[in-house]
């Protein structure tokens, strides 16, 4: 997690073997330096509470996956848009948050907030769109749970050319967190319509990745792997890790943007998320049932033997209640 000045980065990008494959930009919930203080945990990940209102910090990182992405220390060109729960879209300005470039926004309402960064550039005749998306949940149990169902539906912004939408798990609610072994499905939208046959890759926190192509309906599914193996006494069941999904779509169409002309456009969309240990990692049915059945039979046998001993209640004369 080092900070690299952006111009140098651009230089590196230009000199990389695959100059068309610029590293994707994506939003991350994880703080650049853990020692800058801890944030409150909430159902939507780490939050900050100022005067009772939840605020979210997101940092911009670039790189393929969480394992090798870097934080940026200055802004990139492009618009940062926030679509709130009510559907209003407004532009945000980022800044330096705890030493790296990021955005901070308030989340007054319960539900999902979508943050978008659209960065456009033309390089060597190829127009690049770098779209970083983050979907943030705000939920506090104090608000109750009656309003959850209508707010679950993922929303999209049609002005965004390429957008990844995470489809909801079956029976998902505000308390659901993604765990190891869960299968998540993503829907890829190009200009608002599902895009089949595009390449989509999931990167997990320690460098594992999985690529596939979207199917006819524009969907792709990935299973989250387990990559958290601490010693038992250090195990945290709320250990949060980042994942990133990125998708690429190239459109062979020539055009111009002001002074530059291009022969093709490359869209690169990212979506981040968090995953946690699944309850199957630390909850054991086998032991639970073992203990329960042991208690049941021990008590049952104990009472039976106690009755057989005939001491306490003086029932020396026994009746046979079999009929």
């Amino acid at each position: 997690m080092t900070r690299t000045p952006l111009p140098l980065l651009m230089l590196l990008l230009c000199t990389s073997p695959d100059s068309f494959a610029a590293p994707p930009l994506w939003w991350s919930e994880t703080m650049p330096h853990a020692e800058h203080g801890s944030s409150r945990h909430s159902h939507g990940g780490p939050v900050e509470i100022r005067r009772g209102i939840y605020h979210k910090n997101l940092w911009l990182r670039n790189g393929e996956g969480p394992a090798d992405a870097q934080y940026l220390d200055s802004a990139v060109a492009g618009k940062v848009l926030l679509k709130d729960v009510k559907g209003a879209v407004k532009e945000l300005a980022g800044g330096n948050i705890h030493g790296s470039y990021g955005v901070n926004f308030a989340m007054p309402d319960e539900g999902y907030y979508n943050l978008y960064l659209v960065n456009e550039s033309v390089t060597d005749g190829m127009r690049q769109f770098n779209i970083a998306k983050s979907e943030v949940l705000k939920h506090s149990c104090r608000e109750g749970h009656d309003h959850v169902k209508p707010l679950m539906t993922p929303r999209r912004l049609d002005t965004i050319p390429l957008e990844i939408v995470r489809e909801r798990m079956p029976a998902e609610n505000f308390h659901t967190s993604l765990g190891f072994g869960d299968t998540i499905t993503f829907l890829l939208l190009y200009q608002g319509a599902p895009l089949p046959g595009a390449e989509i890759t999931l990167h997990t926190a320690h460098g594992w990745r999985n690529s596939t192509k979207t199917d006819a309906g524009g969907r792709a599914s990935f299973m989250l792997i387990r990559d958290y193996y601490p010693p038992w006494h250090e195990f945290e069941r709320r250990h949060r890790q980042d994942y990133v999904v990125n998708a690429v779509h190239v459109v062979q169409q020539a055009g111009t943007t002001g002074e530059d002309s291009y022969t093709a456009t490359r869209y690169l969309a990212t979506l981040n998320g968090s995953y946690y240990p699944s309850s199957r990692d630390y909850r054991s049915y086998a032991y639970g049932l073992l203990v329960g059945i042991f208690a049941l039979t021990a008590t049952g046998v104990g009472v039976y033997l106690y009755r057989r001993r005939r001491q306490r209640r003086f029932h020396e004369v026994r009746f046979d209640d079999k009929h």
Partner: protein
Amino acid sequence: MTSIRDAINGIDLRRFRFWLQLFFFVLLVYGGYLAINLGQYLPTFSCGFNNEGRGGVCYLLPLQHQLAMSWGTLFGWAGLMVLQGFLFFSLWFFVLNKGWCGYVCPLGTIQDWITGLRQRLGVRYSRYTEGQFRRLSLIKYLLLALMFLIPLGIGGALLPHDMGTPFCDICPGRMIIPMFTGDFSQLTIDFSTKTTMVMTALGMLVTGLFLAGAFFKKRFFCFFCPMSALHYLLSKPALLKLKKDGNKCTRCGDCYRVCDMEIREIADDVKEPRIMQDDCILCLKCVAHCPEQGALKAAFAGITVFESTERGFIKRMTKGHIDEHNTH
């Protein structure tokens, strides 16, 4: 008017109770599917862990959550919220007094069904001796105290946050009631931290003990229930009361024989008219099995709703005599 009263005093209490308990069981365990929500201040074990089906939440769950807030918050404005919750809980409670235990509680209903099973199998039940009764009766107060102290300890950062709902961890309702809606996930032992491991293991032990205990002893768990202790502390102003006229009592002990909780005072105390004890679940079996006219009565807001009558007693006992099948 007297014929209505006679009809009520002569009802088959067993059957009435069976159907009423079934109704409340369905309401509280499956009511969520019908979008029924009676709130989170219910004075009965409508388990909050039964996420989909619950028709309301047992007050102990939000109470423990609230008490576990940090002391700064709890003794500040949030404390008002806790008091408000407690007030709603008390208002619900005042309506039925401990009748919530005898007629509504799903865990109590489950125990009664297990008792019915035992009767069908012809296995006899166990009784406590007086010494055991006296000593074991204190456990529910101990559990109530711990239920308050442990979350407060968490709020004061003296105990790990994992113990936030200590009673819910050991309550057999958490394991058993969600099973009725197909959720078996509470039957696990959580190994993520030492605290959760110990608490969930305790919970499974208590569940096993509960099932065996309820088989051999009528309403086994109710004797140790902290909700019962909390009820009793609030029971003075409640609307539904159990009253005894000691002059009419012959101390025949019929009420004691049928009492699920084995309360001796109901038979032996002839001085105190307010005869409901801390273990009582207000099932009213004592009233139904008293042969002396007017010795025991259940009164709602001062109006007698169910009274012990000679005719009613004879009718119920005769029915028992002529029943061919041993129905509960």
